[in-house]
């Protein structure tokens, strides 16, 4: 098992390398961000973010996330209160989303 402390991260806590990620690391980042337990709904979002990033090279916008991840915007904010797109990206081990939307 890899631990979070062993993988390189940037100043904001995002993983430097997408391939360092695993589910244990995701749980550790979540706990650090104040989410003690990742539910199935959290995983749905995190996996969608990660899959989209790996497939397209960029993270989805909050609009796309709400429409296509299977979790609507209201619930996204309930699951990840301090900004769903950025937090789900961090937990998913992908870079911080760059867009304004």
């Amino acid at each position, binding site marked *: 098992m890899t631990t979070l402390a062993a993988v390189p991260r940037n100043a904001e806590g995002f993983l430097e390398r997408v391939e360092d990620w695993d589910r244990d690391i995701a749980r550790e980042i979540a706990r650090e961000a104040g989410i003690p337990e990742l539910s199935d709904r959290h995983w749905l979002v995190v996996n969608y973010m990660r899959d989209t990033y790996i497939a397209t090279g960029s993270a989805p*916008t*909050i*609009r*796309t996330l*709400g429409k296509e991840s299977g979790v*609507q*915007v*209201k619930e996204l*904010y309930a699951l990840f*209160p*301090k*900004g*769903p*797109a*950025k937090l789900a990206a961090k937990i998913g081990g992908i870079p911080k989303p760059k*867009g*304004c*939307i």
Partner: protein
Amino acid sequence: MSPEFTQGQGAAATMEPQPITKVSIIVSKGWLDGVYPALIMANGARMEGIEANVFFTFFGMDAINKARHDAIKVATVGNPGLHLMTWLGGVPGMSALVTRQMMKQMEKLDIPPIPEFLELIADSGGKLYACKASVEMFGLTKDDFIPQVEDIITVGEFYAMAAGGQIIFT
């Protein structure tokens, strides 16, 4: 330079900048380039976990008016940012054409049309308000607005709500 001034400057330099935790945005214009920046900034605030209020006043209320917000356009007359000749801006259909082109560009960037954008902001926990004085002036009621509008409030109530945060006027 007076000693007091030097002292003041020194104190400011050592103060840590505090993160923004709340923004209250005032929308007073009813054309596209008056409305979109406000919505983008409100949504952007929510994306960062920042509390966001949007206060619609004067013609800005068109953005939350059910009957009008689908038809908000770019003003092509008297809008120097477009670099159009003045007479060309007034040609019938020019405003619709420019608006269509701009919307197409925004859709590419995943920026939603105004009605959907307002829903997105409300679903994100951003609060939408209409200005009481403007509502009375235009003879409107809460029924004229989209259901996501939280309330019709006075300027005093707006300031009370904005307390402790930043106020942005677009």
